[in-house]
């Protein structure tokens, strides 16, 4: 298993999930994450193609993500509209807007749109480093600053934040915009760092998986990143194992699922989630040691493609919603009087 490849694949997921984590900690679920990533993915390629500047190609999508965060926050936080409906609309907007822009700028021939690969050292680049740095950075912001305390209060029990003199809607807007910035970076990295190209609908559910990762990672930066590594690992399998055989698939799938089952048993005995998450992630990663498996019959890559989603779903089934979710998650806050 190529560790650098694993990190590269996990980075878009981890960045997006980290932004989503900040938003959810403030009480807002951003269903439109998928769409924000898609728009950012397109903008990244577009800016990189037209200016040749990689920093700009990340800056512009990040700003676009923030702007989309503002729009979605206006509806969900300021107007108190249903977060699922607004997020769904953002996703449609992204599919339509990127589709139209892509076709009008690059034509409809469907030819591959190549972007120069990002400069990498030992297979990793700045965004991978950022992903790893985000664990302490977001952790610090949430747990070790006054802002983080108010943020968590807004997500758990907004009345308390209001009683302490802080505007719940303002702090939630800030969180949603931060989530947008990370969605932007994640999307841009997906097209520039992973695919080196743009294709319509290329996010292929990564935004939704990122939302699931926040639940899976128990709303904690470290676990969310580790969960992203597990799913990123599943995604990278189709490349490292494309030509490998059915036995490999079965073994890998069984190992991952058994790791999840172990988690289930652990949970049933009410062991702390912390330990459970560790067991799960390392159970999954330990599989990589067994990767040099007999390469016999070619297996359709679709099964590999479906694996990340199956694993994400299986994990959610096992961990359920649990009791650590922010208390006011998904609930619009209306001030009294």
């Amino acid at each position, binding site marked *: 298993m190529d560790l650098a490849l694993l990190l590269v694949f996990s980075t878009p997921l981890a960045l997006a999930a980290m932004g989503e984590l900040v938003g959810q900690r403030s009480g807002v*679920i951003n*269903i439109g994450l998928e769409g924000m990533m898609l728009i950012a993915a397109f903008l990244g390629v577009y800016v990189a193609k037209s200016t040749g500047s990689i920093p700009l190609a990340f800056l512009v999508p990040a700003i676009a993500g923030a702007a989309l965060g503002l729009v979605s926050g206006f*509806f969900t936080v300021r*107007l*108190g*509209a*249903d977060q*699922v*409906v*607004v997020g*769904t*609309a*953002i*996703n*449609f*907007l992204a*599919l*339509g*807007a990127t*589709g*139209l822009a892509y*076709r*009008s700028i690059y034509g*409809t021939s469907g030819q591959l749109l190549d972007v120069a690969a990002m400069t990498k050292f030992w297979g990793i680049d700045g965004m991978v480093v950022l992903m790893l740095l985000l664990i302490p950075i977001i952790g610090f912001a949430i747990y070790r600053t006054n802002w983080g305390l108010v943020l968590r209060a807004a997500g758990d029990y907004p009345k308390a934040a209001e009683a302490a003199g802080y505007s719940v809607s303002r702090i939630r807007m800030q969180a949603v915009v931060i989530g947008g910035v990370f969605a932007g970076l994640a999307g841009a990295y997906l097209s520039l760092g992973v695919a080196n190209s743009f294709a*319509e609908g290329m996010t*292929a*559910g990564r935004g*939704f*998986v990122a*939302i*699931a990762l926040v*639940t899976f990672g128990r709303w904690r930066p470290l676990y969310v990143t580790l969960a992203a590594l597990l799913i990123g690992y599943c995604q990278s399998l189709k490349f490292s194992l494309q030509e490998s055989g059915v036995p490999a698939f079965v073994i890998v799938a069984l190992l991952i699922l058994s790791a999840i089952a172990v988690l289930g048993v652990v949970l049933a005995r009410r062991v702390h989630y912390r330990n459970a998450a560790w067991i799960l992630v390392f159970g999954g990663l330990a599989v990589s040691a067994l990767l040099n498996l007999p390469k016999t019959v070619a297996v*359709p890559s*679709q*099964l590999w*493609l*479906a694996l990340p*989603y*199956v694993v*994400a*779903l299986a994990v*959610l*089934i096992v961990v*359920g*919603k*649990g009791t650590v979710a922010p208390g006011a998650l998904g609930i619009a806050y*209306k001030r009294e*009087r």
Partner: protein
Amino acid sequence: MVGLFAILILTLLVLRLPVGDSLTLLYQGAFGSEAGVHRTLVRAIPLVLCGLGVIVAWRAGMYNIGGEGQFVAGGIAAAAAVKPLFAMAQPPAWWVVFLLAGAASIGGGAAWGALAGWLYVKRGVEVVISTILLNFIALQLLVYLASGPLQESKHQLPLTDRLSSGMMLPKFNSQTDLHVGIFLALLTVVAVYIVLYKTKAGFCLRLVGENARVARANRINSGQVRLLSMALSGGLCGLAGGVEYAGVAGQLGSSFSQQWGFLAIPVALLAALNPIWLIPSAIYFAAILAGSKTMAGFVSDGTVLIYVIQAAAVLGLVAIRAYTSRRVIQTEAT
């Protein structure tokens, strides 16, 4: 509807398309000829059926955005159920095929939807997340099956066996795609309307979605109602897949799904989750889809145009609702 029209024009303006010409072309493509009308109506069929699925789930408070996966699951179940028929010496009549495909597709879609419902009720997994994950799983399953167990008998293309025209739903005109499934769609609208508004079960479904605590205080089991609503919703989306298979596609491949399950969400939202209003809403978007074919010079594919219009329309609707409800709250508070 006026608002929808305004949003269409606005979108055209934003895209810097000539509004007059575009509208003329859209209209001609959608309603200008028999072929155009048929093109519109055949697209309205899956939108209506999936839209009904969305309505049934959302009315119960279940944010099923997995119509796409349930549509695909329905198609897969239909193709699997029909597969043995290809071995018969004499191809069976279309209605035999359809009865089999229809029943199987409802079952397949219902199972796919009920899975998400069960996860919500028993494990607290948000339906929004589980249904979207199940979408991707269903899509990959489809591609896998089409090139694996369900592959056509010559094992050359990643497609299932193609239904002969005699086995498919009869068409009104052999030159166009419109098939008798349109009657089924209309019948289903009526059926869903009756279930929602004229039966005890439908009443409980709406009550649970509107206020689950009232339902509880009156001894209605919300979990059970929600699970059933997801099964019904999945069944309707699955039926859409079965009708699409037996009426238009005739075989399954990676392009079987044309995003109907997704497109139907805003269609249903803009119909205010009402089965009757769903018909004009579906025809409106079907017309844009069909009409945009003639606009190929401006926009290559109607789907992307529709995404933008749907998004703008939904956000507009949300904003209007938020403002009106806010006004109500303000007048009550003072």
